[in-house]
């Protein structure tokens, strides 16, 4: 009887203290243009705020943007909190200024993929579409 109307819901979040969100907005816009529902929460979010938002909004994907260098502290904390809330079916990717040598540890913490500066938005869109877990 009913027709399903499932959309991919994505939270684009900026943890930490840096105040540049152009990258995050470009990604949000690209995902929107690819037909996804993108929730944007603005700057300077704590891990608690990000996970709480992901929970209430029932997102399929979380994209973390960071330029401050605090990723090795903040990202594992976010992954921990997601796990604690039982949200292991949420795919998390990251972007921003993240040194190559930090990536393996982040992936081990549960970040599915890390995208550096200059990644074409089309690559990102394809990645999200192909890696949604729900």
């Amino acid at each position, binding site marked *: *009887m*009913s*027709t*399903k*109307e*499932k*959309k991919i*819901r994505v939270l684009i979040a900026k943890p930490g203290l840096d105040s540049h969100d152009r990258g995050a907005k470009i990604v*949000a*816009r690209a*995902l*929107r*243009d*690819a*037909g*996804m*529902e*993108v*929730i*944007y*929460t*603005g700057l300077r*979010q*704590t891990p*608690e*705020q990000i996970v*709480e*938002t992901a*929970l*209430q*909004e*029932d997102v399929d994907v979380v994209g973390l943007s960071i330029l401050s260098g605090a990723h090795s502290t903040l990202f594992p904390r976010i992954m921990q909190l997601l796990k604690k*809330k*039982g*949200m292991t079916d949420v795919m998390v990717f990251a972007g921003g200024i993240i040194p190559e040598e930090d990536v393996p540890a982040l992936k081990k913490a549960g970040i599915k993929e890390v995208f550096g500066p200059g990644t074409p938005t089309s690559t990102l869109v394809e990645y999200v579409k192909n890696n949604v877990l729900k």
Partner: protein
Amino acid sequence: MQVFLTEVTEVQRLVQGVFRGEKRAIAKTISKIENNEPEAQKIISLIYPKTGKAHIIGITGPPGAGKSTLVEKLAKELRNRKKTVGIIAVDPTSPFTGGAFLGDRVRMQDLSTDDGVYIRSMATRNHPGGLARATKDAAHVLDAAGKDVVIVETVGAGQSEVEVVKVAQTVVVILAPGLGDDIQAIKAGQMEIGDIFVVNKGDRENANKAVSDIEAALELNTEERDWRPLVLKTSALTGEGIGEFVESIERHRAYLKKGALDVQRRAKAEIELIEALKQKITQSIIQDLREKGEWVRATDRILAREIDPYTAAENLLKGKTKTS
């Protein structure tokens, strides 16, 4: 049969979670309704008996008037008064790509870790009228979850996006100075639906002029009404007028409780029934026509300009097997 039983259990588990106010259960339930999943109707039927307690406030007004910012201030003031709050913030879906950028939470950051507040962003998914198809049922979910107040924020609305009246008990129209003169204020649509009119950005020049333009337009109401809409001035920036705003909402609530609420509830129940019927009837008719192949035949004939869509629809309804 086994599968069916498991499904029912999962639905019941979700609904029980909603009744206990569990956020993940609320989130999943709203998604199922929003995505129109097969169990959505079952969920609504289980939740409905527990609804009707929350005060549902609709917030509407043009883009950029400060709706989301004011919703945050309103929610904080309600929290100070020990009320729990649910918020549904609607933003538009792109008619071109089907995507949406939901940015209302940017203005509500302080609320995101308050356990007494639940916020859900919702895309219209091209439903007309300023709300999504699922907004009303999502409000029911938050009501059943025990929120004292549910705030429904519409998309940045034009003059004719008035669907919020079907959902909310108290409708607040938020305006800002400099949007238009007394002629704009006489026009139909949004100016007819407010129980409360708020001129936000009251710290700006011309705010008093905007208040008096709205007052003047309301003076022209010839229709006899028990409730004369309130007009007030706020500044979400400075916090001016927020207390008065909450008190206005409570005044309207008190007015409704004196009897108007029963009338309003009955009218809303009828609207809900009409809309549910429309959906059901349309769905079942279309499905039936598709199965019989009449759908394709009628569409072909419309395409060939042999018949216009209205006549075709009329003929189909008359139960003619051929669309001639």
